[in-house]
């Protein structure tokens, strides 16, 4: 492309084992949004296996203290790191500024002690097995064994569609006590490094700080990934998102180098006929459904894209009307106005806009939202605040539309969850929630179908006599 540059080159820093470095040497990005990173020295990105990682023997309690302090420090932001990262992210993030701002405001809460402890308790039964070897109850064979959740060595390909994803990875990583290389996503180049700088600020030189490196390289770059993604350096690759990430990751998976995949997913909603009992319930359901449909401007895996409505076409039209009215509302993870739809999505919608009665379309392309009513799901992927409401005779019959790529199903009224959950789980669904709370990710529960801490750890046995 020879489009003239219209913006300055952004400097993207790296954190190398707790040390922040800056200095634009390697240039990346599109002509309209360029950025530059420090030179990448591969040797700095690995921790030699000949010695334990810095935090392997640090007590978990101490690590949690550091994380809690980090959260407080983030809230105060004495050095302006968070404000600075917010400014930079606001420029480079695909999300609207106000959503980035509100996401940043929620960062400190990610380091909440109760949540961190709850997660360790739920997933690992407490810190004992992390801090040392836990003796197991006597086995039926009569032998006595000990097990340790041993700190892992992990490369993370982190998600950049919401700033909170970086916080999630860093908290999980710190709790494992392992060493972690974070590959920065080009859609969030600043949050992870800022959080790691915060850790170094509250506990300079602390083993947890030294256990993290965050750097950018072009995803799929064989000269980097071919060297780093080896069992001699790392045990696991924890990869979020897109098909391309996973496709490139696949080349390196082999004995001793395991993939922990946070697969790309689609989320949906199931709305029962009960909502038509009275106008208030209808409005309540529409508000919840709009919340789930617009969450992270519909850029997240948990964002609802297809909503199955139990009822008649006439009822569906009433629901769509209400849903559309609730879409242009300012919420924590979305703006009221959204952003104009891109031309591909506009073209898809234009292709069916004039096909009443088969389809009916509410809304325009300014960004507030579009609702499409149909009797079969549309064949494109609704994106950018586009919700396809599919009329079904019963929610049970909508189960056929859930599949192995379905993450969250928001159900309303919540009483309907019980009778649907086995069928949905059987279809491949990972998470069933009350409509309106798709984004309310709870620590200590499985994430994307597995317990992340449990999955991250290396499980090692000491068998027989102590």
């Amino acid at each position, binding site marked *: 492309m*020879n*489009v003239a540059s219209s913006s300055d080159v952004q400097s993207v820093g790296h954190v190398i084992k707790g040390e922040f470095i800056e200095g634009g040497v390697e240039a990346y990005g599109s002509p309209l949004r360029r950025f530059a990173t420090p030179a990448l020295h591969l040797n700095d990105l690995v921790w030699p296996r000949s010695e334990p990682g810095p935090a392997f023997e640090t007590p978990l309690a101490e690590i949690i203290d550091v994380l809690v302090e980090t959260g407080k420090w983030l809230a105060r932001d004495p050095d302006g790191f968070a404000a600075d990262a917010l400014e930079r992210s606001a420029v480079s993030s695909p999300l609207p500024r106000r959503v980035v701002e509100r996401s940043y405001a929620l960062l400190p809460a990610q380091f909440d002690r109760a949540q961190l402890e709850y997660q360790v308790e739920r997933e690992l039964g407490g810190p004992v097995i992390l801090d040392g070897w836990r003796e197991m109850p006597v086995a039926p064979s009569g032998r006595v064994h000990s097990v340790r959740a041993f700190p892992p060595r992990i490369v993370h390909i982190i998600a950049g569609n919401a700033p909170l994803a970086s916080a999630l990875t860093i908290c999980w990583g710190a709790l494992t006590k392992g060493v972690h290389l974070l590959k920065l996503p080009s859609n969030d180049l600043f949050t992870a490094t800022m959080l790691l700088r915060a850790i170094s600020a509250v506990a300079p030189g602390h083993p947890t700080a030294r256990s993290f490196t965050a750097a950018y390289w072009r995803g799929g770059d064989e000269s980097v990934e071919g060297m780093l993604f080896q069992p001699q350096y790392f045990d696991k690759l924890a990869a979020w998102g897109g098909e391309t990430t996973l496709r490139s990751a696949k080349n390196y998976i082999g004995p001793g180098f395991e993939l922990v995949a946070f697969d790309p997913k689609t989320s949906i909603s199931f709305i029962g006929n009960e909502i038509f009992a009275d106008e208030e319930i209808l409005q309540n359901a529409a508000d919840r459904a709009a919340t789930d449909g617009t969450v992270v401007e519909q850029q997240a895996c948990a964002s609802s894209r297809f909503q199955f409505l139990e009822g008649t076409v006439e009822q569906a039209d009433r629901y769509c009307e209400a849903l559309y009215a609730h879409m242009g509302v300012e919420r924590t993870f979305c703006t009221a106005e959204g952003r104009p739809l891109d031309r*591909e999505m506009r*073209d*898809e919608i234009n*292709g069916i806009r004039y*096909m009443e009665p088969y389809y009916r379309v509410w809304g325009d392309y300014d960004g507030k939202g579009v609702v499409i009513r149909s009797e079969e799901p549309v064949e494109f992927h609704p994106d950018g605040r586009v919700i396809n409401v599919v009329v079904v005779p019963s929610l049970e019959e909508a189960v056929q539309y859930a599949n192995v790529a379905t993450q969250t199903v928001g159900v309303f009224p919540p009483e309907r969850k019980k009778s649907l959950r086995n069928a949905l789980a059987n279809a491949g669904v990972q998470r069933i929630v009350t409509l309106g709370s798709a984004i309310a990710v709870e620590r200590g529960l499985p994430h994307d179908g597995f317990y992340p801490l449990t999955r991250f750890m290396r499980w090692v046995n000491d068998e027989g006599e102590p």
Partner: protein
Amino acid sequence: MNSFTDSRGAQERSLEQAKPLPPARNRLVEMCEEPDIAFNTPAAILDALRLEAARELFNERVEQIPIIAKLAADAEISEIKSFDDLVPLLLAHTVYKSYPQQFVDKGRWDAMLKWLQTLSVADLSGVDCTDVKDVDDWLSRLWAAGHSVLCTSGSSGKVSFLTHTMADRARKTRHLRWTQAWPFTKPSSNRPIFWFGPMVGRNSAVEMGVSNEENWGLPGQAHALDQQPLRIADVSRTAAMRTRIAKGLAPPSEIAEFEKEQANKAAAGKAEVDVLIDRMLDMRHQPLFIFGLWAQHFMVRERARVRGIPDGDFNSETVLFPAGGIKGLDLPEDYREKITAFYGNVIQIGTYGMTEMAQLMPRCEAKCYHAPPGLILLILDQTGERLLRPDEAVDGKLTGRIGFLDLLYEGRWGGLISGDMATLDLSEGCACGRAGPVLLDTIGRYALQGEEDHIGCAGTIDAYVRGGLPA
């Protein structure tokens, strides 16, 4: 089975009977009959006429096609004042396959007709959809009612439907006649035609095969693959199969059987191709017209190797027209050079275009593509939101996404945004000595995230050379 081929001369007759295009468009589109003038007219002169023609065309279509009215309203365009005004009015290729696949799978042909109507100028309500058997039958009904609908399929297997009028079709053939071999030779109906695809079917490659026969063929001397007509239902079946696999409804045995069937069909196709290749090689000392995909020409070359036929053993009056993409095929990097060397001193011609384009761009001696007067070529930014400005040129060249408004179509809107990336040399003169600007021979695809490949016919026709579920 209806013959999908017109009788010889039928197209010319339909053109004689057709209503002439409005004045500015007519003037531009008819210029193709004198390509030496058409492709050597300074852009400044053509552009003024083109703008007038675009204005004329828009004023008409905005009243006829609801989508165009919607796009115009969204962009607050009530009149075409500059080429910039055309950009928001370009359609993505996906719009031509935006119908629900269920309509086809469940045989809701009236609903399909209603969908097609939203993209058509002509009133389709007269098409009889009673007892339509399958999608090919539906297409036949459309054709019988005077709506020539072409199909393309991308790798997803979902079929696009592009309608145009019989007169559009005749004008396309006429455009091809005068420009396809320009500036190397003029068509004359004196060559046996070889086409490594079917002469029966509803896609642009088949249409091209038919046009080639009409423009170049010695009567009774068209050699093509005609044992297996191109059936759109087969393509739709692939799409349905994909859906079944995605839904987890297809047991492994069904998938295996489907793949086997595809492989068998490909093998049968391959056997037929081999016969055709041998026939062509036997006739290589006569002037021929050879039309095929690059991959097929490579097969010809390999067969010639086996038969001990050296490079350059063809008649120098043979016209060679290689086309198509090579995605997913195992060809050496220098396949073009190898094929060109194999045919040797023949008249090799080339065009740039796509199914959605009626007036293809011929390639000159300097290997640059010249835009016909009736084609408004638009170089867009990567997102396709705006025209690149001349002051964004680097070394006098603009690289961007290709969009165009084809001024020929009476049956539908001719504005499209493609997934192709190309470089336009803005110089007033091409290296061949004629007027610029021209597209350089470096056209590629924008690699868009998650974007399936388009450029229609290649995927479908490839089923004749290779099998399995399309990648």
